[in-house]
């Protein structure tokens, strides 16, 4: 396993994996998962260092250079690789700044929502009884709500800010993680080694942390990869509706919304961020599928 992961730094276009690579078949990572991982890594890298390599202020206006099409030169002689918008802002810089927000919001939401879900699910699955009943009923009620409605309501009430978006989305997501964690915790607490630990005199906290928790990581990881894509789309949707990030922050959804008014003359404004979003979400989806297949041997058919 370690040898295969170490030997794959640039996975974009190699075709082994189907051939005679070592390791047993179930453990082999399909090529498309590597491609997905490569695309995701590219975006993460772009979000981290992109704004340094492409030092244009994403929100500075430059009216003489407005609505340049992709590849056109500004009057300063620079190439606007992805064009400029109606205020003359460089779209590539905008896209890179938007990638930061999108990935940051997704990561923070998954961490916060996942942590809350993990604790709630672990406790309710391990103890059962009334804590479980209360947590499960709250979860039921929340799931009876279409999550997009809850997100719109929360985001609208809290007002636009990056922190509020994370809070909003984490609130709509924790239930999913709690359910996953609860199911695994319930299954694990019935196993022999948990009983053994109890007989040896281990306390509840120790059993939960040392013996039950390790079996939760894998299902939670699978759930997280599925949720990342959904969270990114949700952030973009909220920003599109004007309920997401504040106006002075770049966000893919907000840029798509701005570009609506210029569709006939400047298609690239809306299309570039939407394509970026679709690409990342697909990449994350492929990785998530790979994770799921790897963790569920029955789905190998």
């Amino acid at each position: 396993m370690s040898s295969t992961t170490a030997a794959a730094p640039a996975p974009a276009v190699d075709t082994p994996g189907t051939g005679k690579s070592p390791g047993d078949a179930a453990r082999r990572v399909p090529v498309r998962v590597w491609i997905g991982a490569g695309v995701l890594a590219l975006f993460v890298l772009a979000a981290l260092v992109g704004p340094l390599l492409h030092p244009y202020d994403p929100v500075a206006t430059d009216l003489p250079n407005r609505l340049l099409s992709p590849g056109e030169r500004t009057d300063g002689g620079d190439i606007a690789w992805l064009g400029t918008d109606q205020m003359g802002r460089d779209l590539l810089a905008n896209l890179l700044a938007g990638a930061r927000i999108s990935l940051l919001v997704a990561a923070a939401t998954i961490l916060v929502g996942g942590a809350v879900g993990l604790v709630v699910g672990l406790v309710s699955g391990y103890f059962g009884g009334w804590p479980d009943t209360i947590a499960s009923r709250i979860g039921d009620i929340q799931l009876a709500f279409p999550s997009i409605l809850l997100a719109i309501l929360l985001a609208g009430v809290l007002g636009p800010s990056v922190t509020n978006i994370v809070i909003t989305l984490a609130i709509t997501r924790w239930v999913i993680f709690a359910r996953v964690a609860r199911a695994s915790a319930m299954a694990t607490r019935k196993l022999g080694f948990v009983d053994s630990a109890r007989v040896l005199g281990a306390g509840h906290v120790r059993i939960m942390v040392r013996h039950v928790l390790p079996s939760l990581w894998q299902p939670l990881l699978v759930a997280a990869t599925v949720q990342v894509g959904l969270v990114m789309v949700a952030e973009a949707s909220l920003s599109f509706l004007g309920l997401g990030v504040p106006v002075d922050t770049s966000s893919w959804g907000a840029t798509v919304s701005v570009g609506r008014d210029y569709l006939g003359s400047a298609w690239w404004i809306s299309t570039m961020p939407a394509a970026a979003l679709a690409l990342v979400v697909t990449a994350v989806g492929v990785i998530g599928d790979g994770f799921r297949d790897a963790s569920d041997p029955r789905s190998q058919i």
Partner: protein
Amino acid sequence: MGAFLAKRLAQAVVVAFGALTLVFLIVRVVPGDPAKLIVGPDASAEQLESVRADFGLDDPLWRQYVDHLAGIVRGDLGDSWRLGGSALSNTLDRFPATLSLSLAALVLTVAVGIPLGMLCARRPGKLLDLVVSTGSLAGQAIPSFWLGIVLILIFARRLDWLPATVDGSPAAVLLPAVTLSLPFIGWLARLVRSSALEEGGKDYARTARAKGVGEGTIQYVHVGRNIAIPVVTVLGLLMGNFIANAVIIEVVFSWPGIGSLMVDAITNRDYAVVEAAILTITLSYIVLNLLVDVVYFVIDPRLTPEDA
């Protein structure tokens, strides 16, 4: 059956009650002065005072909650300060538009998704199958609001085939319905495909094959009846999803449904309308879930209420 229904109904009531409470809490307990939210940041002290009195905001929270619940029982969710008149009637006026959009999307999804899934199951791993499975992944990744914009650009602006928004003609529903259903068509096709493959390998299908029944008859008659169970279940949930997801699509297409009303109301701090809209959508969501449970029992005679 009666006992099962009663149990499910009771659950639905509890969930609806919880949802109500959740909305109440979010709107009222969230930091900030609700009166200020209602009249805006530069309201005078007298305005704030009168709003507080009108909305009962000076009462303790439990008192407001009880009043709120009593209001809901009477069908009174307060008045919309922006549109005038009762918030609930304003919302219900918009409901048919949302329903017809969601229904059109559901019809599209079923009409395309089910045959597509069946075709994929006939030749798994072949070209069509691969196209559909890749397409469904991409369809779910493309943000729906952008898909809507692109469809407007192509079919309304460039080709001028279809209206981009309501113009009185029935064709106006097409673009938003396609936008709404596209991500789910591939998804339904995949569901139909995998159930058809699973059922097609079962004993009864093998028996039918052994006695010389044609492959088409097996697929559409023998297997089809068994696939109906998971598919019908999913249709109810899909309809619920469409009603909820319509919120964003309605904004893109300026569709006069509950969703665009709600987003307008949120940006204008018209919380009575927001609550009425959420209540309406959530209730239809719950009712659809209930309906699915009932249909499930009606179409699958193997199930007994003990399975619930």
